[in-house]
Each structure stands twice: as structure tokens, then as C-alpha cells.
């Protein structure tokens, strides 16, 4: 099983504004760091040629979407908190608003399956509504790949 993660950030200003320029300048190096990290599988990209292009979506212009797949929980954790990404994370308040509700969700997908953004948003809604469980969880309340699977619609589809 692979680990899918969705992370939403609520922008303080439009992504092309001067306020966000510092963040946009970090997109290329930090995405390159992610792509080269051990256990990285896939991430949603708006453009193959422009590393500063953020994902265009229908969920509101103020939302920045980060959506990726990793080999396991440790691989993602080590990238997020044990790499140069931590320093970027420390500056988050310069660019993003604090939200009281969860903005990050993870779930397991069969190897080779790339989930859709709509499914990812549904997983986040599930986390908000029901709290962490095998089908939508967080680093704080993780579930391992063996705890879920059978009950997952995505897994069931893959076996058909």
C-alpha cells in the first residue's frame, strides 16, 4: 500500500501578490526536494514546465492545494519534518492563515493507484466530520496500512 496525502493552505493574499512572492520563490527548490526524497511516489502538478505554477482547482482561489503519494508514513514524515522543508513550514504564518479545522489528511491507496482530487477532498471532509480513522487520518493519529484496506472503496475497485 502507498500513502496518499492532501494538505490545504489558506492563502493570506493572492498567490501572484507581493506578499506571497517569498513563498512562490521557494516552490521550485522545495518541490525539487520533495520529488528527490526517499519514498516519494507522485504529486499533483499544474505544469510539467513551470515549477512555480500552483494547482488550479474549483475549491476556492484562497486555497493552495498540495496533494501527493508516498511509499509510507515515515517517508512523508521525514520529508515534512526532517528536511529543509521544516524551515519553510516554520514561516507558514507569513503566507497562510491559521485554521481551526484540520487541513491535512492521509489515507492508504493500493500501489500504483493515483487518487483523484475529489476523493482527497472527500477524505478531508470525512476527517473533519468523524475524526481520525483508518480511512482518513493524521500524523497525530496514524493508522497502518494493514488496519484499513479491505474496507476502502478504492481498494475494492482495484481488485475488480
Amino acid at each position: 500500500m502507498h500513502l496518499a496525502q492532501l494538505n490545504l493552505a489558506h492563502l493570506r493574499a493572492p498567490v501572484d501578490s507581493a506578499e506571497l512572492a517569498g513563498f512562490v520563490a521557494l516552490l521550485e527548490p522545495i518541490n525539487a526536494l520533495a520529488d528527490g526524497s526517499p519514498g516519494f511516489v507522485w504529486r499533483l502538478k499544474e505544469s510539467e514546465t513551470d515549477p512555480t505554477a500552483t494547482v488550479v482547482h474549483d475549491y476556492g482561489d484562497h486555497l493552495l492545494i498540495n496533494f501527493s503519494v508516498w511509499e509510507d508514513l515515515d517517508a512523508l514524515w521525514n520529508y515534512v519534518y526532517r528536511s529543509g522543508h521544516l524551515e519553510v513550514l516554520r514561516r507558514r504564518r507569513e503566507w497562510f492563515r491559521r485554521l481551526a479545522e484540520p487541513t491535512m489528511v492521509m489515507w492508504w491507496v493500493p500501489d500504483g493507484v493515483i487518487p483523484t482530487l475529489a476523493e482527497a477532498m472527500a477524505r478531508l471532509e470525512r476527517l473533519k466530520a468523524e475524526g481520525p480513522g483508518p480511512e482518513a487520518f493524521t500524523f497525530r493519529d496514524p493508522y497502518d496500512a494493514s488496519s484499513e484496506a479491505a474496507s476502502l472503496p478504492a481498494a475494492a475497485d482495484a481488485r475488480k
Partner: protein
Amino acid sequence: MSDDDLDALGLLHDPVRRSLYEAVAGRGGEVGRQEAAEAAGVSRTLAGHHLDKLVEAGLLESGFRRPERKGPGSGRPAKVYRRAAGERSVSLPPRDYATLASVLADVVEGLGAEERAERAARVAGERLGRSGGGRPVEEVLRERGYEPYADGDAGLRMRNCPFHVLSREQPLLVCSMNLALCQGLLEGLGEDPGRARLDPRPGECCVALSKTNED
């Protein structure tokens, strides 16, 4: 305090086991029997016996390293040891500061008070530094459990995170507070606080110290 913890730590009363444990833990990675035996000044057979006792007690973990040469004649994979990930602690009378610290960390996060927490950590670090009595920073960090080591020409890195459990729960808050604490510590010792910076790597403390100009 559990009996298991006490029994496990009791094993280290034996000086051979203690020096074998330190030889393995001090390397920060996998150590073979021969290497551990040499570091502890005992025979390979005796080292193997005691290392396996430490594995049984959960203080070390063992695994096998593939021989570098492949094919016939390359020999069996060598047994290697590394420090176990789990924590052991014994406190008399029983104390539990980690649970309270975890609750307080959640409160800080809930309030969005990360900057206040960092300022408080900086002040706490300065206090610790001043009570360090002008000793070298490496010595003070070692005493505080960071297990510092020279990282080539780059300066000092730390093998151990003294706040490990909390830094798994609240990495952003705890690593930021740890950086502030280390900066305060340097300041309190009369050194340049700018030497401490975040340079996180898997399995180590997130803070690294750059060299001083005199080094």
C-alpha cells in the same frame, strides 16, 4: 516505572555490557560484533554474548549486514547492532512529565502561541547556559543528553533528541522550541546564538551548530 524498564537498565550495571552499549549507541548506526568487542576491550565471543543479552532486554536491536563481496566465499551476513528506538526510564518516586508536556504542547498549538513558546524556550536556554559556568558548549550539550559529535568540517551535530516523543507529536513546535533553547544556551554561555540553526535529518536532533570563527 515498569519492572521491565528496571530489569533492562539493571543489565547495564555490568561494566562490560555498559561499555558495549555505549560503543553501539555512540556510533549512531550499525556496529558489528568485532568493532564493539574492540571498543569495549573484550573478546568477540564475550561481546556477542552480552550484545545478545542487551537485544533480549530491548536496549539494542540486531540485524544482518550483507557481505560486501557477493557469491561463494563471501561468507555469512554479519550480525550488527544498533540502539533500540524505544525509551527506558526509571524514576523513584514515579514521575510523569511527558504527559503534562504533551498536554501543554497541545494548548500552545491550540492557542497559536508558538512564538511565545519559542521566546520562553530561549529564556530557559539562557538560564541553563548561564548556570553552565562558562564550560564549552559541547560539554553542556552532552550533559543535557544531546550526544553531540563533530560533523566533519561543518561543526557539531547532535545524535539524540532529548525531546523525542514530543517532537514526534508536535514536530514544528518542539523543533522550533529546541532551536530557541539551543540559541539561548549559547547566549547564556557567552557564545554567538547564531551558531545554532535548524538542519533536520532523519533520526537525529534537528539542530546543528556551525563552527566558531576560532575553530
